[in-house]
């Protein structure tokens, strides 16, 4: 948990709040008071554990600071605590208050937004929060939302400045898919930190594809596009890889499953166009396009594990199932558990099977239970 104190930054000018979350200064231009005094504590905010963006943010699964509570304070005396209840995009949907006299917590304001973050209705506009759509601070005077790297204008669903990492439409908000995606930092990466059961902090990137996969491949890479490769290095790398003990073990496992086809493993030329990649797993075939780049052995170990999983009829519709399949394949490559987990998060998120809120300590625990790391040998 992290507490942020907001002080009045100036008095007569009422230029706004001066907020200090973990040493980072925000200037929200939230000028709503004529009686501010410099250094006068006005409000306190409680977030899920976080570091300064864009570094890994939280251990509770959110890649942005998850606003948990807001406390109105006058001279350091707590008056009211408002608990903010958020949805999958971290958007504040309800504000609740605890009444100590009746020992009850009730929702005092319910907010309804349109797809681009405009508040279309609320049950009690007198009870408000600085943090609303995707939990970024909203400035009611300008009608803009501060996403740290950029200002977002929900009225038109666009950024005020270009995307710092580029793209086709530099002003477009989350690929015009605001119900599916969030872009809390104005960029597409979502670093997440989870704590593994052994206490290790594991940072992963639950990034989203750009453009979103829902658009489909414009020009598909077809099997027939991958012409046979004459690259001798690739051919010898693939031939040697099939003699690797780890690869052989996987091939034996595949052979042992009745009805499981032995995949074709070939070198192909896939250096151009839509097919450009280190290799492909297509249908029942594994095509290696680069005998040197990734390492044919680890690549084959990874993909043969996936082939085996398909033969075992493992489904990967849910995030947890997909993570399990990816962690297993990464471990087969010889990666450490932390690396296997982090890489699984990357590929599961980029293919839209997992979302940021899925990447939690509980998920890490689940994977750990499924694939417990080997215990070090006892010293005699």
């Amino acid at each position, binding site marked *: 948990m992290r507490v942020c104190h907001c002080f009045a930054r100036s008095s007569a000018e009422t230029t706004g709040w001066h907020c200090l979350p973990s040493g980072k200064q925000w200037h929200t231009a939230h000028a709503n008071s004529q009686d501010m005094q410099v250094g006068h504590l006005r409000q306190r905010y409680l977030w899920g554990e976080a570091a300064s963006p864009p570094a890994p943010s939280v251990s509770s699964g959110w890649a942005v600071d998850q606003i948990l509570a807001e406390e109105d304070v006058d001279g350091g005396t707590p008056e009211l605590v408002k608990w903010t209840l958020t949805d999958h995009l971290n958007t504040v949907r309800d504000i609740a208050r605890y009444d100590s006299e009746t020992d009850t917590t009730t929702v005092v304001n319910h907010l309804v937004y349109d797809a681009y973050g405009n508040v279309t209705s609320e049950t009690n506009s007198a009870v408000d929060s600085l943090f609303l759509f995707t939990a970024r601070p909203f400035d009611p005077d300008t009608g803009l939302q501060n996403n740290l790297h950029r200002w977002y204008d929900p009225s038109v669903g666009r950024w005020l400045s270009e995307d710092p990492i580029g793209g086709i439409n530099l002003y477009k908000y989350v690929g015009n898919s605001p119900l599916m995606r969030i872009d809390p930092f104005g960029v597409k990466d979502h670093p997440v930190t989870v704590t593994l059961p052994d206490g290790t902090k594991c940072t*992963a*990137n639950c*990034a989203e*594809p750009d453009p*979103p*996969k*829902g*658009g*489909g*491949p414009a020009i*598909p*890479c*077809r*099997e*027939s596009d991958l012409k046979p490769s004459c690259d001798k290095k690739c051919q010898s790398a693939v031939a040697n890889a099939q003699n690797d003990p780890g690869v052989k073990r996987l091939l034996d496992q595949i*052979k042992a*499953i*009745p*009805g499981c*086809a*032995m*995949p*074709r493993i070939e070198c192909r030329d896939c250096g151009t166009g*839509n*097919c450009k*990649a*280190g*290799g*492909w*797993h*297509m*249908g*029942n*075939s594994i095509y*290696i396009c*680069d005998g040197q*780049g*990734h390492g044919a052995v*680890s*690549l084959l170990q*990874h*993909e043969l594990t*996936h*082939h085996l*999983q*398909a033969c075992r*009829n493992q*489904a*990967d*519709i849910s995030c947890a199932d997909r993570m399990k399949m990816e962690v297993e394949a990464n471990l087969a*490559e010889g990666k450490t558990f932390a*690396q296997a987990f*982090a*890489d699984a998060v*990357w*590929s599961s998120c*980029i*293919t*839209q*099977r997992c979302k940021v809120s899925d990447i939690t300590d509980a998920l890490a625990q689940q994977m750990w239970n499924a694939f417990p790391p080997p215990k070090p040998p006892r010293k005699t």
Partner: protein
Amino acid sequence: MRNVRLAVALVFALGVTVCGADEPSFRSSPKAFLEASLSGDGENPVLTIRLRNTGDVPIVVDKELVFLPDIVLMDNERRVIPFKETRAVEKPAVSALKRRLATLGPGEEIERQVRLRKGFKRFVTGISLPTRSGGAEAPKVTAYEVLCQMPADVRPFEIEVSYKPPYSFEDGFMAYMQGISAAQFYRGPLRVGVPYRFAKHTSGGHGERPATTKDAPN
């Protein structure tokens, strides 16, 4: 008498064990029945695939039986023999693709005839293998329908009709259908292997006895 009973029990147990090892281990509940048979001759082998809903609830299938099942040619070591991709099939509009998803009610069945050497439609999915691991490169997904044929010089040992999603099916289907998940689909697993007994240039074949399988209970 007691010894005889023990012997019978032992033989039965051994038999079950041996049979169990030969059969694929399926996990889905018994919902459907897949049947495949081969007719025609070596020049024009025709594979007939039939899927019947044997359960008591409707199942969602592709009424063209192209998304699932997949057809795989195998040699005698179960290695995959590739089909030849002859012509790209232009991707229909998503609305048209959606209409292909049909509900098969209890007792209803659906059939497809595949002329293996003449050209038939296949749905292929794939996912690229990034050259750099550790999240440095994003995998790409491909999914497409294509006309395929069994090359003239190929004589497989067996033709497998596999009604279960291959690896990358979920990603490929979602990309092809522009965000629609494959979760609603009946997914099997079902598998039928049809021995290919045609000589290369025979004619007037009498077809084969249909091979069938049911998905096994848990």
